[in-house]
C-alpha cells in the first residue's frame, strides 16, 4: 500500500508529519509578507472610496475572512469525502485541524460585517442572505466541532463528522437561496449589499494580498494543529515514539 502511489505515501501520517513541519515556517512567513504588503496597500496607499469614505477599509479583512470561512468549509468537506471513500486516516485529522480556524474566520466575517454595517446602513445586523448564511455556517462549524468532541473513538468521530460536513455542503446553497428568496419577498432592509463597481486597482490588489495572507495563515495554523493531532492519535506507533525521543520536530 505504501509504495503504490505517492499520494498514499503522503497520506500516511508518518510521512506527512515531517513534511508538514517543514512547510509551516514557509507558510507563516508568506502570511506575514502578504499581510504587510496588503496592509500597506490597503491602509496607506488606497484612495478614499467616493461613496463610503474611509469606512470601506474594513473590506480588506471582511472579504478575505468571508472567503476563507467558506473555502475552509469546502476543503473540510473535500477531506471528509476522501476519508469516507478511501478510509484514509489523514483526512479526518485534516478536517479537524481546519475546523477551529474556519469557525474563527466565520466569526471575523460576522464581526467585521457588523462593524461595517453600522456606519454604512445604520444597523449592526440585517437578515440578508449572505449574513444569515454566514451565521449558519458558523453554527455548522460549531456543530461539527461539538460532534467530533462528543465521540470518544477518533475513527468514529472522523466518519460521523465527515458525514455531517457532506450534509452541510449540500445544505449551504439551499439555505443561501432560501434566505435570499425570503429576504427579497420581505424587503425589510432597504439596504443593498452590492459594492460600487468602480473599485480602484490598488483596492483590489490590497484585498487580494490580504486574502493570500489569510490563506497562508490558515494553512500554517492548520498544519501545526494537524501535527499535534497526529502525535496524539498515533501515540502508540513506532514513528511517534521515535519522533518524541528526538525533539518532536
Amino acid at each position: 500500500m505504501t509504495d503504490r502511489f505517492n499520494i498514499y505515501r503522503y497520506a500516511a501520517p508518518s510521512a506527512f508529519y515531517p513534511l508538514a513541519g517543514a512547510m509551516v515556517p514557509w507558510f507563516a512567513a508568506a502570511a506575514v509578507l502578504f499581510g504587510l504588503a496588503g496592509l500597506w496597500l490597503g491602509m496607506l496607499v488606497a484612495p478614499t472610496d467616493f461613496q463610503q469614505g474611509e469606512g470601506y477599509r474594513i473590506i480588506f479583512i471582511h472579504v478575505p475572512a468571508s472567503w476563507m470561512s467558506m473555502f475552509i468549509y469546502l476543503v473540510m468537506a473535500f477531506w471528509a469525502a476522501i476519508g469516507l471513500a478511501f478510509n484514509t486516516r489523514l483526512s479526518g485529522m485534516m478536517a479537524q485541524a481546519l475546523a477551529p480556524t474556519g469557525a474563527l474566520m466565520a466569526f471575523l466575517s460576522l464581526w467585521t460585517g457588523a462593524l461595517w454595517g453600522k456606519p454604512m446602513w445604520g444597523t449592526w445586523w440585517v437578515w440578508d442572505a449572505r449574513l444569515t448564511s454566514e451565521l449558519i455556517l458558523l453554527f455548522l462549524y460549531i456543530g461539527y466541532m461539538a460532534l467530533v468532541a462528543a465521540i470518544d473513538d477518533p475513527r468514529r468521530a472522523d466518519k460521523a463528522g465527515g458525514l455531517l460536513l457532506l450534509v452541510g455542503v449540500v445544505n449551504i446553497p439551499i439555505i443561501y437561496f432560501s434566505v435570499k428568496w425570503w429576504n427579497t419577498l420581505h424587503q425589510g432592509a432597504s439596504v443593498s449589499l452590492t459594492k460600487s463597481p468602480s473599485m480602484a486597482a490598488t483596492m483590489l490588489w490590497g484585498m487580494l494580498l490580504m486574502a493570500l495572507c489569510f490563506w497562508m495563515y490558515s494553512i500554517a495554523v492548520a498544519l501545526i494543529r494537524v501535527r499535534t493531532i497526529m502525535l496524539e492519535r498515533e501515540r502508540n506507533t513506532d514513528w511517534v515514539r521515535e519522533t518524541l525521543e528526538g525533539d518532536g520536530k
Partner: protein
Amino acid sequence: MLRIVTAVVARDLRLAMRRQADIVSALFFFIIVVSLFPLGIGPEPDLLRKLAPGVLWVAALLATMLSLPRLFADDHRDGTLEQLALAPHPLGLVVTGKVIAHWLVSGLPLAVLAPVLGLQFDLSTEALVVLTASILIGTPALSGIGGIGAALTLGLRGGGVLLSLLVLPLYIPVLIFGAGAVDATVSGLGGEAHLSLLAALTLAALGFAPWAAAAALRIALE
C-alpha cells in the same frame, strides 16, 4: 422493497400506540408554546395575525425535535437496531420506514392541531388552510433531516443538545418556506409558490436523508 418499509412503519406505530404519553407530551408542548405567545405579546389581532405563521411554525419545529432523540435510541439500546442493520435489505429503507412512522406520530397530529391553534391568532379560513397544508407538507422534511441528526448523535453524552445544534441550522429552509406560505396568504400574495418549494424540499429530504442517516447508523454501530 415496499414490504420492508411498511413492516417498519407498522411496528413503530404499534410501539408508539403502546407509549402514547410520548406523543401526547409533544402535542401539549406545541399547544402550550403557541398559546403562551399571545399572553406574552398582547391581544391585538393585527399583531397576532402577523406573528402567527412564525410562532406556529417555530413551535411545530421544536415539538418535532422533542421526539427526535428517541428515534433510534430505543432500538439501539435493546439491540433491535443491530438486527435491523443485519437484515438483508438496504438500511436506508428501514430508516425511511422509521422516518415515516415518526412523521405519522409527530408531524401529522401537529397539522391536525394547527388550524385550531391558528384560530387563537385570528387567522382567516384561507390562511388556516394554507397553514395546515404547509405543516402537512413541511414536517416530513423535518422528520427526515432530523433522522440524520438523531443517527449522528446516537449513543453520545448530551446527545439531545448536540442534536438540536446539528439539526436546527438545517431546518431553516423548511421554516422559511413553511412560515412564508402562511405569511404570503395573510398578506394576500398567495402561498402556492412557497408550498411548491416546500414540497420540493420535502421530496429531496425524503429521498436523500434516510441514506445519510443509514450511513450514520452504520458508523454508530461499529
